[in-house]
């Protein structure tokens, strides 16, 4: 194990001394993210101002007969959100939920009967608006949630302003003492109770399998991991390339004349690739946190995703190496695969905008799984919410390792 680690650390050192590799591992994803942020206006507009998504299909069921239900529908149908959303009004709750379940829409927004009345009646318990989110479209669901939160926050601000005005009128004697006392006590008690409970008096209930509880969605939280995962594939193939380069430089042959086994050499090379990939992701995440003030989410989840994504990508690098004969072949195949996985895995285009069969096909890429995971974390998820993502990445890595080792074992003449 010690020699495996020594070999891996040697490769890690060499990778970070290779200027061309550093350019592609760190500078390129960072600059591309920066460029995309500039294009989308993320650096000049508030987080979440632009998502890169278009025409998110959403169903609206307004069962409220008051002003707020109507206002909420108007917000979703407003010109400002026309490019982003594709809202449709519905009446049948069961049919609408089915549309979400069948992945025909990103979510259902249900305004309950009496919602306006519950908000405007002092002392009444405010009813909650329901978002029935589509778990297979976490990004779109996050955006719907962010819009709803914004709407409800404004309503809440208006309600508190009204109560404050009542109290102010009481103090100034603009209300009759008998009326003022009753109204003031009621408003004061309500606000105090809400403050102690620590919950928003106007709320949103989020439903749907695998749903998370997002706060807001920052488009950079999609771009940055997209680019990082794209160039992680470069690192994985770079590792494969160094394996064949060692053979060409005769250091592999020299290694095999020392008291070092083929397994140790093989393990060291793979561990080196894995560590390089993990360090690359770690640096990119750390730098984007500092420079873009990007919130990647739950620390444990981020670490787990870095580890599992690097493992899966290393598996792909190993498979390419098993097929290729020269470092040049690894570089060519690796570059093609990196781009294909970037497109297929959602690094350039949001997967939700691609046809369903492409979305299914995207599951062969570490990019798609990784992006899902980072999106979940960016929307407020934790390590516990990453179960299926981590399983997918680990399964992919393990399968690729098994196949690659089998191929290497069949073709044992590593040095002849």
């Amino acid at each position, binding site marked *: 194990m010690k020699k495996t680690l020594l070999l891996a650390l040697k490769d890690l050192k060499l990778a970070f001394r290779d200027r061309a590799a550093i350019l592609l591992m760190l500078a390129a994803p960072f600059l591309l993210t920066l460029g995309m942020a500039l294009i989308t206006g993320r650096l000049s507009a508030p987080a979440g101002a632009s998502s890169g998504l278009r025409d998110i299909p959403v169903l609206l069921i307004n069962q409220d007969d008051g002003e707020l239900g109507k206002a909420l529908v108007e917000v979703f149908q407003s010109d400002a959100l026309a490019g982003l959303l594709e809202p449709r009004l519905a009446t049948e709750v069961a049919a609408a939920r089915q549309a979400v379940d069948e992945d025909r829409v990103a979510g259902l927004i249900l305004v309950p009967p009496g919602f306006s009345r519950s908000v405007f009646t002092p002392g009444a318990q405010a009813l909650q608006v329901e978002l029935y989110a589509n778990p297979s479209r976490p990004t779109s669901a996050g955006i719907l949630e962010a819009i709803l939160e914004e709407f409800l926050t404004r309503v809440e601000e208006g309600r508190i302003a009204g109560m404050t005005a009542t109290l102010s009128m009481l103090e100034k004697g603009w209300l009759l003492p008998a009326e003022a006392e009753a109204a003031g006590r009621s408003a004061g008690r309500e606000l105090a109770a809400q403050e102690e409970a620590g919950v928003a008096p106007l709320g949103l209930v989020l439903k749907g399998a695998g749903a998370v509880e997002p706060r807001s969605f920052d488009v950079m939280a999609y771009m940055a991991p997209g680019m990082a995962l794209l160039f992680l594939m470069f690192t994985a193939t770079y590792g494969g390339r160094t394996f064949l380069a060692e053979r060409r430089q005769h250091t592999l042959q020299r*290694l095999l004349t020392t008291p070092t086994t083929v397994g140790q050499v093989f393990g060291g090379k793979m561990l080196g690739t894995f560590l390089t990939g993990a360090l690359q992701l770690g640096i990119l995440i750390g730098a984007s946190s500092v420079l873009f003030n990007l919130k990647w989410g739950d620390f444990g989840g981020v670490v787990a995703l870095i580890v599992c994504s690097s493992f899966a990508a290393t598996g792909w690098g190993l498979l390419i190496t098993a097929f290729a004969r020269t470092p040049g072949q690894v570089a060519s195949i690796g570059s093609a695969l990196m781009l294909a996985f970037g497109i297929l895995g959602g690094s350039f285009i949001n997967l939700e905008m691609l046809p369903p069969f492409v979305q299914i096909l995207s599951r062969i890429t570490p990019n798609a799984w990784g992006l899902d995971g980072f999106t979940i974390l960016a929307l407020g998820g934790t390590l516990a919410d990453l179960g299926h993502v981590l399983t997918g990445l680990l399964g992919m890595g393990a399968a690729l390792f098994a196949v690659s080792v089998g191929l290497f074992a069949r073709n044992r*003449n590593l040095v002849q």
Partner: protein
Amino acid sequence: MPPILEVHDLVKAYGDTLAVKGLRFSIAEGEIFGLLGPNGAGKTTTLSMLSTLFPPTSGDAIIGGFSVVKQADQVRRLIGVVPQEIALYEDLSVRENLAFWGQMYGLAGRELHQRVDAALGQTGLQEKATHRVRTLSGGMKRRLNIGVGLLHRPRLLFMDEPTVGIDPQSRRAILDTVKELNRQGMTILYTTHYMEEAQELAHRVGIIDHGELIALGTQAELVRQVGEQQTLRLQFEEDQSVAALAEKFARLPGVARVKAEDHSLALLGESAERMLPPAVQLCGEVGLRLRTVQIQEPNLEALFLHLTGRALRD
């Protein structure tokens, strides 16, 4: 001295092609053994099998009591290898390379540090210790390549043509290093296609050609196989082909054999002085313009010529 290496009918085949054809020889502890042969003779393939890089097709070799086929790991602890190619990490420094390879040989801590310092001293690279290998000259890289093979103080050192492609000064330094290592007790198997190196270094020489060991013994024993013959080497102007005229030279008085090379003829006979006048006269008759004339005493190259009909550099 007991043998540290015994080679038993070593064979390596690549498909239908036999690269090494049943080699048998042994090397005594403390000896420098020269394996001399032209390029492609099978020297590197032999060394690769002996250093456990790949297994022989058949046969075996015993190093320090361990089989290269069955006990490769034990063998690797006894041997050091200096490959023909520069097998170093270009983007690691000289010291980092030595430390890494030392660790691969199981060295660690204080001992590793001391051995690295010693290797830097042996190779004369102390001042370049922190420089990356890619910034070194070819000769320095060669010296470091040797230094790596010495780190763990092997009992048997394999050196595969360590002077290929370097300047005369570095070559001299490497040959002196080999002699010094041997004086310190290290056994060395040294492959080369330079006759002069084998003559200068080796206590015993094996001559290999087309994968076969065609001669084996001390230099004196080998040279005796050629007899007392001297070689008269006639070098002509470069545009003149001489192969067709070899027969005429073979009929000259005192000439026992003639070998034609590109633009030269090697005449073997009892006395070069006796062969010279008629040879020069014949050159004039057939219109060959002589450039140089060289008389060589019996040596390994003459032996190779005698045994194979070809020069070592062919």
